[in-house]
């Protein structure tokens, strides 16, 4: 088992890259807002409703990209030669961000569908598939939060992540055949001609949401890293703090000098019940 645990120098989740990404995302979003709401024309048929194409397609695409990254990272974690905690964290972070984007995609789709189709929801093949995916990944996130040993949890969720890659094509055919039997693909017929400025704004929205995805991913993977550090080192940290409390006259054997050997600490928290270790650690850190 290769464990490439590297402790970050500081405890924050931001750095120069994330700040640059964040600034870029803000600027791009502002651009999308301005072009999307002010300069681009309203559609002849759909009116202002058409402005949702500056959010919805980009958000949906990002959701699928995020799920794809989860499946790929899970596969890389399972493959012995590339097994690294980095892939586990990436899979988890991408799954979480993906669920957010997927929920946003369903929500914006509903908001568009209500005035355009007259219903909040229709059993369109693509809609059904997106909803199924959302449910699948909510299950995946639940699986990631089950506690227990870090390694066992990582393997379970990696297998689940890879399984999704297999499920999605089957779901695709099932929903496609099921619905095309009753009605045509509603979405395909409703794509109107796109003007030049609309196309550029739409492209900008893809950039904006791509940057937001990247920014969220950086922060989320770092957060996962810190969480696993808390799991591994938290108990030792808390013990050192208690010892320091018990012997006030002794020179400060501060938390800085607490034994922070990653693998051993992980082995402890892996074999003992991870939940109680974590609870003790966080209780210790809070007081």
């Amino acid at each position, binding site marked *: 088992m290769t464990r490439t645990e590297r402790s970050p120098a500081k405890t924050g989740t931001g750095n120069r890259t994330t700040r640059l990404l964040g600034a870029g995302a803000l600027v791009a979003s502002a651009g999308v807002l301005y072009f999307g709401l002010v300069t681009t024309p309203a559609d002849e048929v759909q009116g202002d409703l058409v402005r949702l194409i500056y959010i919805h397609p980009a958000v949906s695409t990002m959701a699928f990209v995020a799920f794809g990254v989860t499946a790929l990272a899970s596969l890389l974690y399972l493959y012995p030669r590339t097994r690294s905690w980095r892939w586990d964290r990436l899979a988890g972070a991408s799954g979480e961000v993906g669920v957010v984007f997927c929920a946003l995609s369903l929500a914006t789709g509903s908001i568009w569908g209500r005035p355009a189709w007259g219903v909040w929801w229709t059993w369109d093949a693509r809609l059904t598939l997106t909803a*199924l995916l959302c449910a*699948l990944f909510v299950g995946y996130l639940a*699986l990631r939060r089950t506690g*227990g040993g870090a390694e066992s949890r990582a393997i379970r969720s990696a*297998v689940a992540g890879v399984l999704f890659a297999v499920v999605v094509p089957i779901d695709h*055919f*099932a929903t496609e055949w099921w619905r095309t039997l009753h009605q045509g693909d509603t979405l395909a017929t409703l794509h109107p001609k796109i003007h030049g400025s609309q196309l550029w704004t739409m492209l900008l929205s893809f950039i904006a949401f791509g940057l937001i995805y990247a920014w969220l991913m950086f922060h989320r993977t770092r957060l996962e890293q810190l969480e696993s550090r808390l799991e591994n080192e938290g108990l030792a940290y808390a013990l050192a703090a208690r010892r320091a409390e018990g012997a006030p006259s002794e020179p400060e054997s501060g938390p800085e000098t607490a034994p922070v050997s990653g693998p051993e600490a992980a082995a402890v928290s892996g074999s003992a019940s991870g939940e109680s270790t974590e609870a003790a650690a966080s209780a210790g850190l809070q007081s």
Partner: protein
Amino acid sequence: MWRDAALIAGKDLRIEARSRVATNQVAPFAIIVLVLFGFALEPDRSFLQTAAPGLFWVAVLFCSLLAVQRSFAVEAADAAGDGLRMSGLDPAGIFLGKAAAVALELAALEALLTIGIVVFYSTALTGAALLLATAAVATIGLAACGTLYGVLAAGLRVRETLLPLLILPVVAPVLIGATRAWEVALGQSLDDGWKWVTLLAVFAVVYVTLGVLAFGTLLEEA
């Protein structure tokens, strides 16, 4: 591998035969689900007749959850799972055996549920070949998929609540495919029923293969 599978399947089926959980609890549950659908929907016979394939397969899905949970609950008791891991049996064989036992239990439940929809929903059974072929591939798919997710959630404290959340979205294609195929067989739809059987067969093959490949890893972690 096949001998190990037969051993495990025999063991699980013997446990079921002796404990009578399947016959005394799961089977009555299946019938109650059918009756509840009758309460919830218009008890007008023609409506229930139209909905019968879908209701049948929803009931089968619920039963498959119980069967899978049961299949891994017997391993959780008295550290039987540790015995299984140390038995030296081929993990792929263990997977196939457990899935086969679940599939046979489901097949028996499906036979019971079929009598149920004939009696309660006045369904006239037609297109026997398509009905049976659909039931066979769907059952294998459900059992394989259920067993794989069963071991994925085994050993977790939250497995009872986590398992339905994991399995139900995954088996959605089985519900869609089996329901459509049965509608065709029962003369309610002019779709190509065998197309759905193919999809169900692909589902079954994919999950049996994945189970054979991944079960060993997951069993170690359970």
